[in-house]
């Protein structure tokens, strides 16, 4: 297939990762293209809970904690630029966030786990406060009687992930970047130092290619000498109708959106590419949410859905440049909102410059090969 059109950089995937990388490369203008699938696809970006979450992240890979903190700190800049360039307010709030523990046992485990996390060599420490029931109740009006306590981290926050996705696309579009929907990539063919993407909508040529196709990366990566052994992990979400504002800050599994709706998440199930809902899981989620905020009992559920997280074997992101095809990069993670600012201000510029700096080395997929003894 001969490409009908060619670009300097092709980003494969129009989800949160691809859109953020695209936004970070928007100064390329018309030399940039985002290549995306059609209307029905496994789109984690549509099922996102919307947290910008730091606390608890990085157990087993200290640099992931650092990377997450960096992105959270850069988030106000990202939200400001998006507002300026598109007029879209992505409803960023970083008032800190709370992980609620229903029992004393849960709280003790949580505190111990956070201690172990922060004791890791090379871990960049941040403040975490532990609240007992009274401390938590003073911050969360309407808290259920049998909640034992929780942990608070001031770096945590949330935004509206659908507005984020739209704003990233809108800004890239305004800067002249191209977008090709309905172009699911079936094959990437290296041509010298460049690439031809064979897609459902015709071939596209590119000097550099960024694999940001979520679960699709698993199949695409080997075509350019990369490895992205990602698997789906199902999460279910419940959305309640708009209710008067009662939550000033996000909890890890319950948050009130800027629109007033309440999101309840999130379950984790390894069920393959299954996006169907289980009533038992929804029931368990609902029951747990009611123990935290009993007053939500009468709120109407307007929607529930399942989406697929993009999970690597150890749960951490994969960022890597191909050794055999140096114009090819991969970016994949399950925290497209939290890490959006990192993708915009660190990953995308590195792609533009032609190579990933040392700080990305811990995220190379080589770590799985070492672990497997390959």
């Amino acid at each position, binding site marked *: 297939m001969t490409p009908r059109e060619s670009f300097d950089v092709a980003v494969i995937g129009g989800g949160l990762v691809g859109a953020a990388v695209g936004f970070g490369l928007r100064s390329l203008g018309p030399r940039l293209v985002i290549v995306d699938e059609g*209307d029905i696809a496994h789109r984690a970006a549509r099922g996102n809970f919307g947290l910008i979450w730091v606390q608890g992240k990085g157990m087993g890979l200290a640099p992931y904690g650092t990377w997450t903190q960096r992105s959270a700190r850069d988030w106000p800049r990202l939200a400001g630029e998006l507002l300026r360039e598109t007029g879209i307010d992505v409803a960023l709030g970083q008032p800190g966030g709370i992980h609620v523990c229903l029992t004393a046992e849960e709280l003790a485990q949580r505190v111990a786990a956070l201690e172990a996390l922060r004791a890791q060599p090379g871990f960049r420490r941040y403040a975490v406060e532990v609240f007992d029931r009274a401390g938590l109740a003073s911050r969360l009006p309407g808290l259920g009687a049998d909640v034992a306590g929780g942990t608070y981290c001031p770096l945590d926050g949330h935004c509206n992930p659908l507005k984020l996705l739209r704003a990233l696309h809108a800004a890239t579009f305004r800067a002249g970047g191209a977008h090709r929907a309905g172009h699911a990539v079936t094959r990437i063919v290296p041509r010298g130092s460049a690439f031809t993407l064979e897609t459902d909508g015709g071939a596209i040529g590119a000097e550099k290619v960024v694999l940001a196709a979520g679960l699709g990366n698993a199949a695409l990566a080997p075509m350019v000498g990369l490895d992205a052994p990602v698997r789906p992990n199902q999460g279910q979400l419940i959305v309640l109708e708009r209710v008067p504002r009662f939550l000033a800050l996000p909890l890890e599994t319950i948050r009130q959106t800027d629109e007033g709706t309440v999101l309840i998440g999130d379950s984790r199930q390894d069920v393959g590419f299954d996006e169907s809902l289980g009533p038992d899981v929804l029931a368990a989620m*609902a029951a747990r*949410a009611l123990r935290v905020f009993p007053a939500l009992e009468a709120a*109407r559920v307007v929607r529930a859905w399942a989406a697929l997280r993009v999970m690597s074997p150890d749960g951490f992101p994969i960022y890597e440049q191909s050794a055999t095809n140096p114009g090819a990069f991969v970016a994949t993670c399950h925290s497209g909102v939290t890490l959006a600012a990192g993708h915009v201000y660190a990953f995308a510029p590195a792609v533009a410059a032609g190579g990933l700096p040392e700080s990305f080395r811990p995220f190379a997929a080589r770590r799985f090969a070492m672990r497997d003894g390959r």
Partner: protein
Amino acid sequence: MNIVYDLAVIGAGPAGLVAATVAARHALATVLFDDQAAPGGQIYGPPTAGQNVRPETQGGDIRDAALIDAFRQSGATPVFDATVWAARRREDGLYEIGVAYGAPEARSVRITSVRAVIIATGALGRPFPVPGGALPGVLTAADAQVLLKTTFIDRTRRFVLAGTGPLLWRLASQFLDAGIGLEALLDTTSRGRQWRALPAAWDFARAPNFLRGLAEGRAVRRRVQVIANVTGLEARGPGRVEEVQFVAAGGTHVLPADLLVLHQGVVPDINLGSVLGCAHRWNDVRACFEPIVDEWGGSTLPGVFVAGDAAGVAGSDAAEARGQIAALAVANALGRIDARARDVAAVRPRAALRRALRGQAFLDAVQRPADAFRIPRGDTVVCRCEVVTAQDVVDAVRLGASGSNQVKAFVRCGMGPCQGRFCGLTVTELVAQECRMSPDAAGYFRLRWPVKPITLGELASLPSSPEADRAVARGMLS
């Protein structure tokens, strides 16, 4: 509580009543669920505050009573005041139906397992997006029927009806019967359509509903100013509707109005089938999605059948016939009768169906609303739940949304409590037009539970499972 029924019939209109009756007579353990407090569905039963409307002009009381009697004697289990909010296919091939039942203050929820499903959820009002259509005082036909039945109406208010289709005229009659005058009936049926429909008119003239409709039309015309070939319809405020502007007979006119009822026909209620995963297809004559069904009403999912207007709007006579045909197919599929007995028993309902469908092609052609009334522009509100305009949808497409679901993710249309019932078809057609693709390619919203709202408390009252608890109790660190 944990018994497995052979068949769940959803909807107690003519299709559902007949289907449940026939199934029970063939010794199928049958349960019938309906939102309302009594059988009859939207045609024979009382109107409800839901979005659904009575799609047909006829409704002979004697036959309705006979249908209900036959159902009551059939041995099928009726569950009224029962909202079906979820449905799914299990890995073992059984279907689970999530039902909330009982009085609103003390509803219980449960999951019922069944071997087969007949969806007989009927039709709902087609979206009618016009400028000002989201103003207070603009009602759907269903809203208006609720108003007529359940509340005191201020007779000094000025009512205007606008749109097309038999229900609009039926509604005008109901207003007149209730002693309420109408300022005008604005008929938006387009002149061109009537000529295009002419080849099908002979069949229609022989159709059973024709004379009834004709008489009703004459009676309304005697007492109400009827304005034909209306285009450019607009409701104007500011705070609520105060006047209706429209174009007719070559000029722009303004009528004062306190309430404007908009109705332009009904379309199948496809939400439950969509949630289950049945495939649907765009019907270009009727400009709506319909489930893909075989000659027995069988959907693309084994054991799931669709009967009545939910399978394609055709009125109550067709609904009864289709209900019977689908029930026979289920009886055969579950081994109660062999294929021969099924085919023999289906001869009469098939003949009835042919008779009922006579003239349908004419109605379909005449009633297809003009493009301008289906595909709005500019700041006309498309999605009322989230206040999304036609321009918002077009902008989302220009940003790269290539189908209804990406538009939904970008602008939230279809995310409100109505689950897209008010905007789904409009968004599909807007996307199709903007992307120059077919409505099938533009697609329809992927619908989610709950099909109809339930409360968090009701959801929490469902049984959990150890696996579910493990899935939800979060790992200590992420």
